[in-house]
């Protein structure tokens, strides 16, 4: 476990991302209620909780899809204002959505560069340059991929996932949010995503991993944050807790001794 020792950051380094006391309400219901989480460079942090626990909503605040009602977001120690996906991307925060958020009717390169197209000197789309870069980044993720001329609708689940990941990592992301990245994948493709996570981690990228699958999270994450009913139950190093204890956190909101309890921990 020597890799783990180097991967877990020293307390001295500043967090890559810090969300402090973040809240958001929809029609009077507090979907996220005073949650504080953090992420260090080269760290994988799992975000766990039931459906409706608020983890996707929390992450959508970080990726700019929702604006928080209350709270603060810091990137590299500096307070940032994230009001749109564009703002988040400017901060180096990239998101791979559970739905993949691909425009099905255009090809892989168009999706990878959507909103950030490469232009020629004339101001027109430089599709050839985009295709060339798409071939490069896809070659790294999915070396057998050849279907650059087809709309992504025609691709398999794993290939579509590769396109969504390529879009996130191509632009020098510092923070990667992966929302249920393996939900639609077979075992081989899931393993591939796992390999990729480890590779990105070595490059110093911080990753938020949102998942239902507690085994996935234990395989890949260094730390976990558990949410329930919009509140943070607690935070723990994966090494300090067992899977059963984490299940207890998810289901009962009960914080084990190895975890740091949050505002949502059951008394």
């Amino acid at each position, binding site marked *: 476990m020597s890799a783990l020792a180097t991967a877990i950051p020293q307390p001295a380094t500043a967090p890559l991302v810090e969300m402090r006391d973040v809240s958001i309400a929809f029609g009077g219901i507090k979907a996220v209620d005073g949650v504080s989480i953090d992420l260090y460079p080269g760290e994988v942090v799992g975000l766990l909780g039931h459906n409706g626990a608020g983890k996707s909503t929390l992450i959508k605040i970080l990726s700019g899809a929702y604006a928080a009602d209350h709270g603060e977001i810091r990137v590299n120690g500096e307070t940032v204002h994230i009001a749109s996906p564009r703002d988040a991307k400017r901060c180096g925060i990239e998101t791979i959505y559970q739905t993949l958020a691909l425009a*099905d009717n255009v090809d892989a390169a168009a999706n990878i560069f959507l909103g950030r197209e490469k232009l020629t000197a004339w101001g027109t789309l430089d599709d050839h340059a985009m295709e060339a870069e798409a071939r490069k980044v896809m070659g790294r993720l999915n070396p*057998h991929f050849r279907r650059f001329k087809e709309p992504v609708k025609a691709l398999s689940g794993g290939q579509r996932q590769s396109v969504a990941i390529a879009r996130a990592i191509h632009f020098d992301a510092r923070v990667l949010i992966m929302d249920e990245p393996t939900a639609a994948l077979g075992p081989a493709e899931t393993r591939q995503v796992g390999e990729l996570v480890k590779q990105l981690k070595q490059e110093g990228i911080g990753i938020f991993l949102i998942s239902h699958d507690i085994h996935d999270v234990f395989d890949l994450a260094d730390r976990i944050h558990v949410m329930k009913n919009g509140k943070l139950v607690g935070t723990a190093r994966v090494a300090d807790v067992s899977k059963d204890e984490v299940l207890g956190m998810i289901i009962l909101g009960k914080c084990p001794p190895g975890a740091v309890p949050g505002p949502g921990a059951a008394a």
Partner: protein
Amino acid sequence: MAEPSTTLSPAPPAEAPAGRRAGIGDALRALELDTRMVGMIGALAIVWIGFDILTGGAFLTPRNLWNLSVQTASVGVMATGMVLVIVTRNIDLSVGSILGFTGMVVGVLQARLLPEIWGFDNPLTWVVAVLAAVAVGGAVGAVQGAIIAYLGVSSFIVTLGGLLVWRGAAWWVTTGQTVAPMDGLFKRLGGGFEGAIGAGPSWMVGIAAVLLSVAAILVTRRRRAGFGFPVRPLWAEGVVILLVAAAIVGAVLVVNSYPLPVPVVRRMMEAQGLSTDGGLPFVAHGFAIPVLIAVAVGVAMTFLSRRTRFGRYVFAIGGNPEAAELSGINTRRVMVMVFGLMGALCGLSACIATARLNAATNANGTLDELYVIAAAIIGGTSMAGGVGTILGAMLGAMVMQSLQSGMVLLGVDAPMQNIVVGLVLVAAVYVDTLYRRGLK
């Protein structure tokens, strides 16, 4: 890169060895033609040849084809904008009314307001009129677009309201009076013998079009090859260039074999002080100005939809509005621009329609919304959004106009014409559905 033992992605058909079945199928594939577009052109050819046989050779004459192209221009121009509207999963029911309203505005402008400033037949009149039509139409469209995008009212409702509002406004401009005649130069935008450019200029336009197409094809090929991407085999590139050139030269030959009427030629010769005693020379129409406008709009809109960020965003929004939003695209602004563009094109069509009629009437463009939408749909634009081509919509407009014009030649009654066009619309969409299902 090591040879994969298991592949996640199947090899594309082009790279798979076809073995013994190599032949016509492979040759067609090498051409990389859009099979859907080839189908459309085939359907148009069947309609044309069918009517020619039924009318005993009266359909495929230079005269009929020339008129057909002029009649298609107005709807064709608007159909290019409707493609983008429908691609973004919206609809615009107000285009006929916007045409009526802007038509009245340009009519009053050039027949009443501008002559008060600088008299009749000022060479600037038509320019001001066209710019005003495009600006007014664009503003009307953008307002509707803003209501749709920022207030969240569905486009069906907003433009249904617009259908009534702008038709009413068209009446209001002159409280129902028809304005006529139009400015002499403006009138040329509508076609007719004054609105044709003649044989020599038609050849120049044709040759320029061929050269530009060839240059575009070769530049694309060079760029692709430069990046090491697969390109068409040289012979296939040659065939494509030949097809394009043949289509353009064919069009020039057709419009150049439609003679001006004898009295017109006699008047022209008398104006030049030439003797008209002997046989009169053959003077061709050449391309009609409204047709050149429509073709230019088609080329510009194709460029806009395929080669610019705006076009890319329009299609991305149509494919997945949420994904477009999450990519950081300002989807609302794009929507306002799409409807503004649609309105501006209605303004341009209003100029063509008003000039052709040589009068501005408040009923101009009535029911055009249906023809424009039908043209886009027949041309392969999907109501589900995300799919459609400008060329397809213009061919769709051509198909519909051909059906109507052919039935007029056959003496079919107007109600029966509507029945046929309606049935063709539904049938075309059904065939398209089958085609798409076959693709999957």
